[in-house]
């Protein structure tokens, strides 16, 4: 119905307007054909140039300017005769699409004032609109993924809003069977974004009206895959998709959206066929002159998590053209099933190393094992929490092929085992953090890499996986980038809590080290701290004496003038009372960071210090001089006395005896 009326209306409109159009367009182009024509709007210079050539080739070439730019007064410059002079309302002609658009995700977002939301021109262009069948059109089928991808790819402002749970949409699409068809084979009837999501009435999948809603997805897929019930009979009773879509898996449950892959049909090959050779313990192949056993322990496989898989489900490259059929079938590609994990791994340093030819870099089976692979919850699995440090330690201990960070002579695993996380693990607590909890299981990256979970910008989120409460405190503290805007580097978890030697905060060495940690940035206050009693006693090795965080708090540090601060007027008496039970309002006036060198800030201390210094100097100067004068005189007298005694003893030997 709508299609029909649109088809009739447009030509009529065009006819009516064409005659007047030619003359009027020429008139407009007298000014708007000038490239330099511009206008200042909201302090921005807006070009008012219209490319006549492009317009002439566009679908709207036959229209007159005023057909779209309505309420237009040619005489009045700037043409501000009506409200619509600036904005073109496509709905005047394309009202049915406009209606769909207004109900769509994009239209709703625009209505809410979200400026990133696309309107008609974002996708279709302005004066240069081409029919979607034109290869140069932005809406041509080959161009659709790029068009949608301008916003829906990693790193754009839209992706930063994170309203869509899918990641790497464009990349995944290109790798999928649909994208493969489009880009590698030039198949323009393959599914592009708009085939599934539709073009104007795009809705989130939660919306029951959405083309990608669970209940609608089957019919969406069946736009192309019409015979889908028939080809799925072995797996599922396909007719239920239409009749009772809620009782059976939706297409997307097996065929991940954006990652739709080929499925390997494994019914043709029986495991028994494989085992007829591979149960032989002596079976081997030679790789670079070395014997590699090809024996498969069926017992291993039978107890593994893959016990229901047939051999060729993993060893996919078997072929009847080879003899034996598995010859040169290559490495198992776990991504056939574990696509997201492998994708994560592909971003990791392990993968980078492997691609660069480092034979020691681990592939899936180096950590998970081969036929014996177990779930990480299985205690015998190498990926079980308690076994993780040893697993990683195989490479990352000192002397191992993996990078070993030389924090001290013991190596990472030993350090870890003595840390709070490690000692808890050793005591049997499996929910403590192991290597993979911080470094991620598959996407390990060096801390310098901004994508790394232990990069300084991400480590907070990483720790927050367990220490959420502390992280929330921290994000509200002065050290949080959300609170403090500064060019200086703000501290993160790892600045105070070392990675592998992480300590209990109530233990001595943590308390002794914290001053150095804070002092790295707060140099001046650390100096003055050491001028006062807490600091001096700390320097003598006192663990109990107040350290930075005893007064300032740790994760919840705030400036003293903010009510929540431990040192705010409301709280300081209590804070001091944690060590000084008789703390009182006047007592807390003690200047814990006082220096007698600052005349303006601490005049009392300054003048006291100088009074004492002068008193000292004068006293020492006076008596020092006195002594220095006395010494030569005393020596002279002594010499004289000796001489006299000598004379006396020769003259009068009795004297003195």
């Amino acid at each position, binding site marked *: 119905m709508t299609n029909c009326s649109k088809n009739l209306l447009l030509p009529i409109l065009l006819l009516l307007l064409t005659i007047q159009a030619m003359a009027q367009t020429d008139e407009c182009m007298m000014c708007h054909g000038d490239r330099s024509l511009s206008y200042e709007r909201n302090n921005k210079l807006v070009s008012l140039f219209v490319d006549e050539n492009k317009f002439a080739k566009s679908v709207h070439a036959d229209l007159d300017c005023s057909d779209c730019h309505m309420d237009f007064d040619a005489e009045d410059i700037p043409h501000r005769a009506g409200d619509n002079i600036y904005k073109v309302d496509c709905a005047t002609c394309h009202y049915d699409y406009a209606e769909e658009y207004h109900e769509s995700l994009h239209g709703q977002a625009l209505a809410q004032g979200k400026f990133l939301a696309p309107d008609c021109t974002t996708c279709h262009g302005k004066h240069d609109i081409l029919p979607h069948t034109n290869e140069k059109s932005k809406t041509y089928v080959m161009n659709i993924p790029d068009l949608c991808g301008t916003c829906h790819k990693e790193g754009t402002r839209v992706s930063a809003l994170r309203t869509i749970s899918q990641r790497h949409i464009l990349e995944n699409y290109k790798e999928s069977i649909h994208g493969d068809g489009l880009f590698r084979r030039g198949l323009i009837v393959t599914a592009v974004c708009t085939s599934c999501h539709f073009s104007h009435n795009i809705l989130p999948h939660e919306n029951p009206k959405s083309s990608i809603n669970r209940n609608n997805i089957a019919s969406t897929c069946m736009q192309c895959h019409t015979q889908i019930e028939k080809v799925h009979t072995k797996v599922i009773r396909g007719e239920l998709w239409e009749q009772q879509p809620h009782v059976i898996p939706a297409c997307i449950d097996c065929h991940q959206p954006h990652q739709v892959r080929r499925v390997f049909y494994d019914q043709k090959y029986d495991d028994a066929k494989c085992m007829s050779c591979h149960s032989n313990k002596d079976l081997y192949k030679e790789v670079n002159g070395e014997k590699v056993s090809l024996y498969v322990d069926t017992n291993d496989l039978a107890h593994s998590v893959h016990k229901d898989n047939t051999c060729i489900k993993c060893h996919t490259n078997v072929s009847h053209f080879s003899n034996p059929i598995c010859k040169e079938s290559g490495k198992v590609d776990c991504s056939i099933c574990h696509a997201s994990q492998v994708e994560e791994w592909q971003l990791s340093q392990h993968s980078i190393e492997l691609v660069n030819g480092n034979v020691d870099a681990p592939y899936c089976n180096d950590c998970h094992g081969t036929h014996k692979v177990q779930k990480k919850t299985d205690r015998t699995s190498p990926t079980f929490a308690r076994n993780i440090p040893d697993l990683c330690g195989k490479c990352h201990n000192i002397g191992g092929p993996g990078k070993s960070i030389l924090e001290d002579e013991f190596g990472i695993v030993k350090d870890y085992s003595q840390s709070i996380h490690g000692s808890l693990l050793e005591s049997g607590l499996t929910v403590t953090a192991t290597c993979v909890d911080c470094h991620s299981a598959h996407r390990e990256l060096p801390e310098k890499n901004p994508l790394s979970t232990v990069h300084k910008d991400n480590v907070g989120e990483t720790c927050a996986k367990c220490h959420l409460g502390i992280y929330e405190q921290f994000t509200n503290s002065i050290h949080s980038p959300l609170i403090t805007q500064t060019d200086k580097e703000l501290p993160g978890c790892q600045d105070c809590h070392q990675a592998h030697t992480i300590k209990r905060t109530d233990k001595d060495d943590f308390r002794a080290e914290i001053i150095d940690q804070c002092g790295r940035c707060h140099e001046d206050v650390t100096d003055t701290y*050491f001028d*006062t*009693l807490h*600091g*001096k*006693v700390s*320097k*003598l*090795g*006192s663990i109990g004496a107040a350290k930075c965080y005893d007064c300032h708090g740790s994760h919840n540090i705030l400036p003293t003038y903010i009510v929540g601060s431990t040192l705010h007027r409301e709280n300081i008496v209590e804070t001091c009372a944690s060590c*000084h*039970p*008789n*703390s*009182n309002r*006047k*007592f*807390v*006036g*003690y*200047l814990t960071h*006082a220096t*007698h*060198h600052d005349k303006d800030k*601490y005049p*009392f*201390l300054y003048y*006291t*210090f100088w009074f*004492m*210094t002068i*008193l*000292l100097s004068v*006293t*020492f100067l006076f*008596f*020092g001089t*006195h*002594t220095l*004068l*006395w*010494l*030569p*005189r*005393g*020596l*002279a*007298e*002594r010499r004289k*006395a000796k001489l006299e005694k000598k004379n006396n003893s020769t003259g009068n030997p009795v004297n*003195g*005896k």
Partner: protein
Amino acid sequence: MANSEKSKIKNHGSNEEKYIWRFEPFLSFLHILVILSFLSLAITGMTIKFAGVGIFQTASKLMGGYEVTGYIHRLAAIITFVYFILHIGYLIKKVTKQNRTFKHMLSGENSMVPNKRDWKEFIGTIKWFFGKGKRPNYGRWTYWEKFDYFAVFWGVAVIGSSGLILWFPEFFTFLGLPGWFINVASIVHSDEALLATGFIFTIHFFNTHFRPDKFPMDNVIFTGRVPLEEFKKDRPREYQILIENNKLEERIAPPPPEWLVKFAKYFGFTALSIGLIIVIMIIYAMIFLYK
């Protein structure tokens, strides 16, 4: 010099050497208390004043750590208050029991209070230093001895009161003392202590022990007596007055027993050595590390 003469006398087994009483045993006892407490206070206090200096950190560790030194410091402070009170009691007893008037104590011949004659003796001493006159005829107390005496008085009062504030800051602020006064007290306490230790371990040591005619030590404070010859030479006016009043005989003392001389020697040298070590440590810290 005097010492070596004495030992020579002893070596020859002569008991005829005449001695004069200078200090009664009670005063020797008080001075031993002063020495013990002062050395303890000095070394334990300086470890905090120079907490950032390696040798003081080592010293602190050797003494058992900052907690132990804290206890030592407070114990020595109590000893200080004790000898201070004992000394005041001694003065009161002198006025009340020995029929000496308070005025006599303030301005008599043997008064500790400085007077005009001390000024003259000071001028005379300076002249003597330059060889422009004879050594003044000092009496029982020379002007530098009077200074030492009042320095201790002043020191105990200032360091003691500021120390009490630092010891009981909650109490004193509860009484109304502002918090910043604790900071003032710590500066006063520490710098006055620096003055006291610096003065005692250099000026007092020289004036009393290391000056050429007494070197290396004058043990009179322990034995309480001086050889008559030395007395005549050192304090001619006091000797003169004793002769004039015919009181010399009352002051004649037997030579100190050997154990006492031995004690004086070992104790005295130990104390002197500790003092010297502390002052060297302080000078080292002041020159190289103090801001």
